[in-house]
């Protein structure tokens, strides 16, 4: 992978924050190289004639579908709560939220 396509360490840090991932400083050079190489590779899309072309987000012609508003079986609260790593019944437990706006 040619190092000349590397992106900056700051760009990796910024993206890691957006992606909610902790990336150790020692791993940054690897991400800089690999992400840089991918971004360089996908630059070939610039060769396509895309002026006036409508973006395609989904294959086919998806239409919004409305389901009938009928009651049906659902999973119980107990079943779903049993999957949570930490609970204080009847709630899911998370660390303190207030005052933790530091890194968002």
């Amino acid at each position, binding site marked *: 992978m040619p190092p000349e396509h590397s992106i900056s360490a700051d760009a990796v840090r910024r993206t890691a924050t957006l992606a909610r*991932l902790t990336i150790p400083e020692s791993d940054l050079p690897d991400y800089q190289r690999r992400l840089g190489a991918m971004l360089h590779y996908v630059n070939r899309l610039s060769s396509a004639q895309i002026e006036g072309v409508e973006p*395609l987000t989904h294959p*086919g012609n998806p239409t919004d579908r409305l389901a009938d508003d009928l009651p049906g079986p659902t999973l119980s609260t107990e079943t779903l709560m049993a*999957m949570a790593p930490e609970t204080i019944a009847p709630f899911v437990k*998370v660390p303190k939220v207030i005052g933790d706006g530091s890194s968002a």
Partner: protein
Amino acid sequence: MTPPTDSLAAIRRAILQGDLTAEQSTLAALHTSAAQNGTLNALITTFTQQAPEQARRIDSRLRAGEHLPLAGVPIVIKDNICLGPDFARPGDALGYGGPTTCASRILAEYHSPFTATAAQRLIDAGAIIIGKSNLDEFAMGSSTEHSAFGPTRNPHASNRVPGGSSGGSAAALAAGMCAAALGSDTGGSVRQPAALCGVVGVKPTYGRVSRWGLVAYASSLDQIGIFAHSVPDAASLLEIIAGHDPLDATSSQRPGENWSAAAAAPPPAGLLVGVPRQARTNLNHPAVSAAMRRCEDAISAAGGRIVEIDLTTTDLAVAAYYIVAAAEASSNLARFDGVRYGRRAALNDGEGLEELYRRSRAEGFGPEVKRRIMLGTHVLSSGYYDAYYLKALKVRRLIEQDFARAFAHAGCHALLMPTSPAPAFAIGEKASDPLALYLEDIYTVGVNLAGLPAISIPAGWAALPDGVLPVGVQVIAPAFNESSMFNVAGLLERSGVSRRAG
């Protein structure tokens, strides 16, 4: 006792005639799995106790005169497809769903409370799920090397990859652990491992099979697919799992068709099959080029005509795919946050919710998943969206139009293309260069971007120093025209292209 390496049709016949019980068929599959899995690492979970129990229930239902089209057929399910605790029959708790791990540490202990529709339809038809198969973590990869449970090995040469991401399903089938398997195909993840393991792999039209219970990777591309020993086997399985599901808003309302009949039918008069100029390149392995020639000859010999077409977007498809797939992955995998389910990181005093998210995800995801989440987050982030994501979606439209031109204007019934440019590579060979690995997918990703159905069939063999490895060729058809796809694939299979030369 009929071994599970037999075709689904043979097992079905034997059970119907009373020559084989569901229990015997299941025990044979489990026996092979026990003998092979230590080497191949194809299965993450094996239902050694529960599958025979379920088979005995099926046997008693058969004795009671019930008709079950897949009675006693041993099947393996990719471990990103959920099985709930009562999946054997609603309300009939066998308690053997097992974990649904997606080959990720973050879901290593996750037990789904519900069962995927596609799996449930197999179970309702009498199939016996004998295990859950290994995969690249969250289906991100083309080699099944990126699994928290270690790599799966190719049954034809154990130092080589089985392809991926559904490599466990392909290897399990090729090794005779089951008679069919389910996988998922987001960018070739059923077709490429099928080609590399020498079995049939089907990626149905986007929307053909319900994705309820399939853990999402890239939602505009994901489709559940089938591994089988033959084209008719694959066709008959699709008949069972296809069809509308109110639980999946993207599942199509279109009724299924008699695909088994299409697979066995003679080709239409004036059969026209397109071969993209861009796929006739000397970058292909000689065995792949030879397989293509053999298939083209078989079509001509059957009275069909081969026409060269242009898929000008071929060398842009991988770039467009990796942007779209990574962007959707970064969004889909945001749900794994250590709060409601899955692995949660231990925190130090004073660390808050933000640290919980970041550390749980950093500890839970493997390196390839993190790279794709990072790429996806980057291309969606402010200032880059237009340059990358929007551009990729526009190229995606061009790719769709390229295929549409081949079908509508050139009048092709189907297209013929290699599945993968080369036979299976060695484990570790492409580990340091993900880009080289991504280029494995050059012939498969376009089909997903356009939402088309495609089938890979074994079409030749490459004699390599450490073994004779299979290569595959894929047949691509217009959306919702699986009939055409099965028809041409059936013709090729009957002509003997898959047969191993002596």
